[in-house]
């Protein structure tokens, strides 16, 4: 087997089919990048679920003076008795792990920290504007139904917010994104396979003289077919490299900045990116080899 002979044949083939080769590279690159993004969203979701579902709480907001919530109307705010009764009720619930009271001053501190860049907002809101609340940590975050039902509308309670529900909406969005990315990726992979098939067919037609003579003088099937398969593989590899670059870029500029915005709880690790890249590369090259061989069997009788 003479490697330089094969590679010169491959080079000639790729150059003759330049436009098709570019089409293959672009399709493979985008398809593989979307596949990789899908995989990365996947591990991002599970990483974020792990780190966030540990921390989610049910917030039980208490009535203040002149609170606009209907159940607080006219009550003039929660009094110490009601507050103590609520605390006892919550602590008595079997699903509850622990309860913490967040007073207005602490809520204001948290609010200031979250909106540190927004001076107008901070100056407009006073400590007295912040609601007091009980932060309820559940033993199992999925068993929130009874807790919320029991507390919603209890005297002195303005509103009950389950953070898990908010998070689940967010995760639902992420999951939709993942499915969209994977669906487009599969469609593009299919298109790439067809494109590679066409490229190989064109290439086989362009080089039918050479292959005819090779057949005649007794070149082995491998020797005749390898240049065509290599054309597909090289186009696929170049596409894969571009996809890898796209994935790295999307990690740095998309995933990491989203995490920064969300408080950086579950940053996507480089190992995840590396495994997404290697998986997409392997899939890309396998598809190229497969598409080339199938086409060759049809168009290059040996």
């Amino acid at each position, binding site marked *: 087997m003479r490697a330089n*002979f094969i590679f010169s044949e491959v080079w000639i083939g790729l150059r003759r089919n330049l436009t098709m080769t570019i089409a293959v590279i672009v399709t493979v690159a985008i398809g593989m990048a979307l596949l990789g993004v899908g995989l990365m969203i996947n591990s991002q979701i599970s990483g974020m679920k792990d780190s966030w579902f540990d921390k989610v709480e049910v917030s039980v907001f208490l009535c203040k003076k002149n609170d606009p919530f209907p159940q607080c109307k006219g009550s003039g705010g929660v009094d110490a008795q009601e507050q103590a009764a609520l605390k006892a009720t919550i602590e008595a619930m079997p699903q509850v792990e622990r309860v913490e009271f967040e007073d207005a001053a602490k809520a204001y501190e948290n609010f200031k920290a979250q909106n540190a860049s927004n001076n107008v907002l901070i100056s407009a809101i006073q400590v007295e504007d912040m609601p007091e609340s009980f932060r309820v940590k559940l033993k199992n975050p999925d068993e929130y139904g009874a807790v919320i039902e029991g507390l919603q509308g209890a005297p002195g309670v303005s509103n009950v917010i389950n953070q898990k529900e908010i998070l689940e909406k967010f995760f639902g969005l992420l999951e939709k994104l993942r499915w969209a990315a994977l669906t487009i990726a599969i469609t593009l992979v299919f298109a790439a396979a067809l494109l590679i098939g066409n490229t190989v067919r064109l290439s086989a037609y362009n080089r039918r*003289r050479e292959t005819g003579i090779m057949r005649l*003088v007794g070149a082995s099937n491998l020797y*005749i077919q390898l240049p065509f398969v290599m054309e597909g593989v090289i186009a696929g590899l170049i596409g894969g490299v571009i996809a890898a670059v796209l994935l790295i870029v999307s990690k740095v500029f998309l995933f990491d900045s989203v995490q920064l915005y969300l408080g950086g709880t579950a940053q996507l690790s480089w190992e995840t990116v590396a495994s997404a890249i290697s998986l997409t590369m392997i899939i890309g090259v396998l598809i190229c080899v497969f598409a080339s061989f199938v086409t060759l069997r049809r168009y290059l009788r040996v």
Partner: protein
Amino acid sequence: MIHFDNVTKVYANQNRPALDHVSVDVDKGEFVFLVGPSGSGKSTFLRLILKEERPNSGAIHVAGKDLARLSNFKVPHLRRRIGCVFQDFRLLPNKNVYENVAFALEVIGKPRRFIRKVVPEVVELVGLEGKAHRMPDELSGGEQQRVAMARAFVNRPMILLADEPTGNIDPATSIGIMKVLDRINRTGTTVVMATHDAAIVDSMRKRVVELEDGKIVRDQSRGVYGQAY
């Protein structure tokens, strides 16, 4: 060397067999003309030897191998022992004489040192010394056919098949082509040549096998083309 035993070949979608119960033996080192009108089965005969086609019935042995038992995987190795020349030369237009001949060795994985040694020898054998770096379109038809013969012979095949090698060449040049084929035959290579060219057959006085409608109608040593044409 080539042994056909009751071989019949019918192409798909055709009623009439291309070869009809043909039995023939060609010994090592023989020179055989295969004559007959177009469609008489000459090309089919050659294609069967290369295992490009399979017979519907009968057995073919080439170089001691039963082609029916030869796996597809080994067909390339059979073809390495058979050289082929055609009416239309089948040279690669973007390669010069030397490269065209060397191509046949490159694609079967011969080492470059070997190629550098044998290609000039064969180019000289076919009478193209000094023209190794010409491109095919700079050569006459006769010279192009010599290149094709050099390519067919460079791997020292046991059998050389020639399908109307003088079909595109004027009679004067054809004599030169025949001399090269004769030279190749003298090295011990078995030559089977399908042809229409009565003058050549008559002048060479070699064995003649005549086909008509897929049947052998004459098999004559030191024969002539025949009166009918």
